[in-house]
């Protein structure tokens, strides 16, 4: 046990901690910062988000006809506010616009009118116009809820079609937008990349350090010495676990500050645009995502330790880690984290690919481990 603590202390050397700090600082600003600072990004995303925050506590996931009329009344109240603005705007009067309805009918290719419209929207920042646009997109989505599902059913086949059919039969319509869920998907993908890179940097040196110090032949001649391989391995996995948990907690705490908690209790099916193979609440989805990230973090740790054992020097080590990290970023994070249960990926993709990854890693670790236990030293 004492050896284990020594090894753990060696892995968390102050130099590596410092390096990890720098790398995390940079990657945070490169990948995550803008998702926190500019959330929700742009218009009408910002307005959609504000409306959803208002509606979800009132009406919950599914909107029935009565609630829908309520929502429409809320919308019409806002329209009246806009009407007043147009009624009192001399420029609008000149162009023959007396209320919001007139403004809506502006053809965007009519010189002066189009200028007026884009001026209002982009330069004078009339919030109400964007807000109304957001309301309208929600209301239109609700009005066409059945047609859009029928359209999906017509375009798909097999199991995918069944998912849409089930939604239609159970009358599970999505009322809200995907502003929050999409943002979380991008956030968790970048979070995964940061955690994985950190773990790879932490563990890559574990065995190479000994190889480079020409320590291995000395160690392996004694029974105790060879057993250190296992101790180091467990210490490495422990270190990776500690680091992954710490980083994930830290970045998820930052995500918490976005204030999307209103959306946590809603099922995924109530958010528009993307449909998922399995329905669960947003919070469950978050937990599942973090679980997947952590699982792959452990697999990558095992792989890194195996690479560290086999590499004769740090150059080979980095040379092998480059393609491994490339696969993690371009493949795993994209398909297995971001699009985890997305209906437009094959249903079996995530479980099968994860399984293959698991088996390949376990096999590699096992082979390397066995080799080390029996290796001849000359």
């Amino acid at each position: 046990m004492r050896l284990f603590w020594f090894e753990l202390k060696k892995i968390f050397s102050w130099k590596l901690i410092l390096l990890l700090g720098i790398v995390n600082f940079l990657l945070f600003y490169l990948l995550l910062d803008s998702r926190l600072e500019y959330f929700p990004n742009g218009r009408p995303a910002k307005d959609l988000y504000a409306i959803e925050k208002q509606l979800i506590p009132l009406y919950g996931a599914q909107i029935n006809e009565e609630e829908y009329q309520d929502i429409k009344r809320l919308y019409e109240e806002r329209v009246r506010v806009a009407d007043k603005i147009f009624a009192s705007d001399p420029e609008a009067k000149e162009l023959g616009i007396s209320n919001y309805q007139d403004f809506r009918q502006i053809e965007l290719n009519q010189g002066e009118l189009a200028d007026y419209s884009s001026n209002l929207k982009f330069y004078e920042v009339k919030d109400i116009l964007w807000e109304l646009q957001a309301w309208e997109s929600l209301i239109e989505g609700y009005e066409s809820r059945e047609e859009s599902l029928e359209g999906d059913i017509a375009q798909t086949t097999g199991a995918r079609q069944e998912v849409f059919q089930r939604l239609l039969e159970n009358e599970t319509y999505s009322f809200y937008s995907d502003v929050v869920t999409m943002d979380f998907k991008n956030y968790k993908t970048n979070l995964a990349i940061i955690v994985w890179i950190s773990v790879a940097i932490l563990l890559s040196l574990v065995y190479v350090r000994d190889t480079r110090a020409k320590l291995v032949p000395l160690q392996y001649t004694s029974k105790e010495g060879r057993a250190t391989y296992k101790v180091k391995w467990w210490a490495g996995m422990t270190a990776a676990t500690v680091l992954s948990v710490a980083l994930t907690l830290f970045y998820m705490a930052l995500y918490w500050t976005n204030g999307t908690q209103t959306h946590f209790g809603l099922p995924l099916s109530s958010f528009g645009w993307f449909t998922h193979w399995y329905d669960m609440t947003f919070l469950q989805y978050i937990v599942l995502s973090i679980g997947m990230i952590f699982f792959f973090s452990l697999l990558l740790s095992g792989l890194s330790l195996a690479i560290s054992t086999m590499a004769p020097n740090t150059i080979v080590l980095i040379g092998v880690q480059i393609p491994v990290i490339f696969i993690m970023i371009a493949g795993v994070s994209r398909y297995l984290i971001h699009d985890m249960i997305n209906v437009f990926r094959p249903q079996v993709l995530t479980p099968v690919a994860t399984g293959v990854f698991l088996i390949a890693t376990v096999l590699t670790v096992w082979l390397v481990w066995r080799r080390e236990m029996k290796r001849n030293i000359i």
Partner: protein
Amino acid sequence: MRMTWYEMKKALLSPIVLVLILSCIGLNTFQIISQSHAKDEINLVNELIDIYGLTITADSLSQLNQDLDDEAASLGGTDGARDYLTNMTYETYNELSADDRQLVDRLSTLSMYESLGTSLEERYTSVNMDELRKDLYTGLDKNSSFSNYMEQEFSEWEKRYEEIIATNEYKQWFFAGDYRIHSEMYRTLLKNIAVQSVLIVALMTALIANYEVDQRTQQVLYPTKKGRSLMKHKFSASLVLASLTFFILVTAAFGLYFIVYDFSGVWNSVVSSGLNWEYKLPYITWWELTIWQYFLLAVGIEWIVVVIVSILTFTISFYVKNSYFTWIICMALLIGLFLYPALFNAFPFLKFLATLNLTLLLLNPHMYFSGGTTLTMVQYFELWSLLIWAVIAIIVSLTSYQRFLKKDVS
């Protein structure tokens, strides 16, 4: 010379470097091939240039129009090519013989070029420069000297735009903007090659520079008279290898690229061609650059960037005597360069200086020599960035070499 070669061999014969280079070539090949489904259609522009010449004139356009109508007539269309194509439905298309179908495809592509050529003048001259000026980055203070500088740059660029119109420079055939040839060539392919080169070059440089430390021979070697000056050979070996890696990747990728896409007629066209219009704006370059000039210049700039990265890596390894840390710090440095202009958001001039940096140059080969409203689109941006970073790299590498010569062996 012999010593340099021996130093080079250390990296060249390391199998992992070869494997990395080969996988990068494989990746780029895949990238090119997977995008090439429309290559016959894209290559048709060469035929167009062959027959009607490189410049778009009223005569050649009417000639083209006439020829297309004739062709349509021979296919059975009586009211001209455009009419024939609009009346073509999916069913009638499928009833045609395979040869005829090819002719119709050809006709529709050429007719697209014909309509692009006809509407070119109206479209190109309608770029609203006053509207663009609103997006101009001037920082916070409207009357500072920096904001005046940006205004002046913009006016210069506007003048250049008017010159392009006056000299009809934009009226030259190029691949239609919808094919995104310029973006694929530079933004995808050349940028990928440069990034891949940087990854490999930093690795090789770290290997060569830290070799004696990694092999634990430094205490034997550096006390000798010749020992420390070996660094010079290591240095030149790194630079040669950096260039070699970069050009191997460029040759492999663009060799294939120019086999897939036929540039024979297009080489002498210009980047500022009105057809080279992919997104919001056409590429309005600061100078009249032909396609081959731009290609050579872009490759040249990326090459120098890669060499500077190699010099910086070499310098880092003087201090960090560990190739693992050296490589990671080098990558962190490049990412840091990408991020640090944002620190100076409140100080526009400092932000501008920070923008003249290596990583931005590395990542944006498709925007080289183009004018526009952002900080990276001022005239001579490329030149200044390269100069500043070459000077920084040379100064830090020389001083750290001086320091290294006098240092204790440890």
